[in-house]
């Protein structure tokens, strides 16, 4: 049923696109979003679908949701069905790197072919409005003083939020294995704990808490991006003397063992899409930050992220 519907929809969009003057390339793609409808990977996949078809870089694109286990269920299925395929893509991100390690997933990101890194959003460190901590320095001092009583709230255990909390704890001079991190199903539920004043500090994607930061219900102490971002008042952790950076990146992958020409064709299609005004418009509307990197740079990046995330998770005790 859903398959049929999404096909129909893709067909409608394809018709609409073929009317536009841009000559559509002949790519007919299928993108796997390894998460349920409504999540970050799902919206990234659907945004990519939209931009690729409208900018004429693909004739039709279908999105298929394969939810489960931080994306590792979708990844395992993809590694199997997309071997050598020239029409299959997978969306993934930093959370998947962590989930692979904590779940001992037999398939990891080196099994698939990185095509491009797309977006990279900053995480934000906040405290409730009536918290005694006015600055990041106040918070790190509190961490150093009593790490167990500094209670963090954020997204799922072992995810990007948790990793950042551990990295900050470590940088503040405390034992990262002692970090008192309360995991919620997502930034939304963690937000309620923040507003209710039940925890010391919280971490989430900046976009998710933007409304509360602007209204003054939450005080943003720092962002995890390496450089300041236009329109965000909070300064990077690095600029405030805490030597930590972490970007919530998302990218696309193709199947294992694909021929070089397929890799080149897919990379070109994505590269052209990323440059298109349609994609730039989506980035602006969703509040996503452009973090594009081509296939080879992305592959090297994944190797280093894998190592860094692995080290942190082992320090917290979530991975062996």
């Amino acid at each position, binding site marked *: 049923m859903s398959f049929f*519907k999404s096909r129909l929809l893709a067909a409608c969009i394809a018709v609409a696109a073929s009317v536009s003057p841009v000559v559509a390339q002949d790519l007919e793609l299928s993108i796997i979003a390894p998460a349920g*409808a*409504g999540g970050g990977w799902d919206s990234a996949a659907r945004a990519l679908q939209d931009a690729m078809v409208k900018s004429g870089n693909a004739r039709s694109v279908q999105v298929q949701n394969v939810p489960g286990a931080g994306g590792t269920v979708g990844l395992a299925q993809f590694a199997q069905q997309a071997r050598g395929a020239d029409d299959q893509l997978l969306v993934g991100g930093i959370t998947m790197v962590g989930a692979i390690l904590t779940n001992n997933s037999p398939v990891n990101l080196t099994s698939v072919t990185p095509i491009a890194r797309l977006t990279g959003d900053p995480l934000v460190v906040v405290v409730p409005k009536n918290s005694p901590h006015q600055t990041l320095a106040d918070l790190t001092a509190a961490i150093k003083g009593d790490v167990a009583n500094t209670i963090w709230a954020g997204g799922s255990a072992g995810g990007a939020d948790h990793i950042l909390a551990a990295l900050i704890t470590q940088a503040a001079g405390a034992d990262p294995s002692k970090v008192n991190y309360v995991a919620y199903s997502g930034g*939304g539920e963690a937000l309620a704990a923040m*507003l209710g004043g039940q925890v010391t500090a919280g971490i989430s994607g900046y976009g998710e808490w933007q409304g509360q930061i602007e209204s003054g219900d939450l005080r943003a102490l720092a962002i995890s991006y390496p450089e300041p971002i236009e329109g965000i008042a909070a300064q990077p952790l690095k600029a405030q003397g805490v030597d930590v950076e972490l970007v919530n990146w998302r990218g696309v992958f193709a199947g294992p063992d694909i021929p070089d020409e397929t890799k080149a064709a897919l990379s070109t299609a994505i590269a052209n899409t990323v440059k298109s005004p349609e994609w730039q418009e989506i980035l*602006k509307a969703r*509040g996503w930050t452009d973090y594009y990197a081509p296939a080879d740079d992305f592959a090297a990046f994944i190797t280093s992220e894998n190592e860094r995330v692995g080290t942190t998770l082992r320090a917290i005790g979530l991975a062996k």
Partner: protein
Amino acid sequence: MDALTHLFQGFGAAILPVNLLFAGIGVLLGTAVGVLPGIGPALTVALLLPVTFQLDPGGSLIMFAGIYYGGMYGGSTTAILLNTPGEAASVVTALEGNRMARSGRGGPALATAALGSFVAALIATAGLAFLAPWLVKVAVRFGPWDYFGLMLIAFVTVSATFGSSPLRGLTSLALGLWLGLIGIDQLTGQTRLTFGVPNLFDGIEVTTLAVGLFAIGEALYVVSRHAFAPEKPIPIKGSVWMTRADWGRSWKPWLRGAAIGFPIGALPAGGAEIPTFLSYTAERKLSRHPEEFGQGAIEGVAGPEAANNASAAGSLVPLLTLGLPTSATAAVMLAGFQQYNIQPGPLLFVQHADLVWALIASLFIANVMLLVLNLPLVGLWVQLLRIPMPWLYAGILVFATMGTIAANPSVVELLLLSGFGVVGFIMRRYDYPVAPVIVGLILGPMADSQLRRALQMSLGDPMVLFQHPGSAIMIVIAVLALLAPFLFRGLARLRKEED
């Protein structure tokens, strides 16, 4: 009254013909996907997002709201007629609703569900319009300890209510709690009881369990009886419409359902299921016909149906005021807001007042449309029950399997569904209630995480549960509810001995 003026302006925008059209499309689509298995409102809205990008924000959000409400209406139809709850929130509806349908009273069951949904959604939408900013302040004060107290109340009432004896109810509940342990633990990210099967990492899907236990288990049970005593198709008894007595027995449960559903739905981690359980229990306790429960009591349909629709409206409170989606559909609607560069949250009512009030006004309109759409359909739906038994149950099996595969295409899911079907059959054969299993699966993991969060925040001190007045009161209520029946029995015996 500031809110009232805004609301009238909202109605002004919502009754524009083009917005009415969007609301109409939304409720039609929503009802359709609610009735069809496998494709829920969340997926529908996600599929429509790229299409509606061309439209103006008002129109498309109005359509999404129509889909959201429509899905809640549609979900009850299959639960009542086919004993196949399409979503967790209609599990309780199936209990009494399907009994009614099978004794020839499918019409009144569908009608009280539709009217109850209407009344509750109306009240809850009014609550959303006038109480949202205040309610949300209370809701975020709800800490993990308070949630744990609420879960305890739900556990105690549910295990005492369902089934022929508390022991049987508790046995079923324990099975559900065990199933709830399967999957990744939310607080540590480690897997439990998954035996390395990746499809189990996210735990057992509630709808797979519900459809397996209810629809498949029921079909197997009917088949096992059919060979010896063929059941005749059920004639529709009396009117398809509700009688005066039905009205008299329905209106209070509607109101109580709304009163239970809306505030719990507005809690950031409340959900639509708990209010349906609580409403069912309340109706059973308050009914003048408690003996009818389990045989098709109309209160048992009216209350939970009202509760689940009220909680649907309630869950828009955290969505609009905090930007906090508490259901999959709400999460997709949030993405819908964001694609127009609108961030739901504390500033939404200030920055986009016209849009919010048009949305709220169109919720009222969508609600009326749904009633107009659904009541005439009742006559059509009950015709389904004229289908001969073997055909009907074969159809249910196909429908249930198709829906499960459509939602999650995997062999493991199908095996689970069949396995639960067999379990459901055995439980029916030996008279164990199936509903507490589902309650355990839904509430077990929530109670688990909330208790451990509370302990994590108190650095392991269990007294935290009694230091907060909310949780202390709820725990005391739960303990009293558990002990009261025994105490009363003991007192009665004592008095007898004195005589």
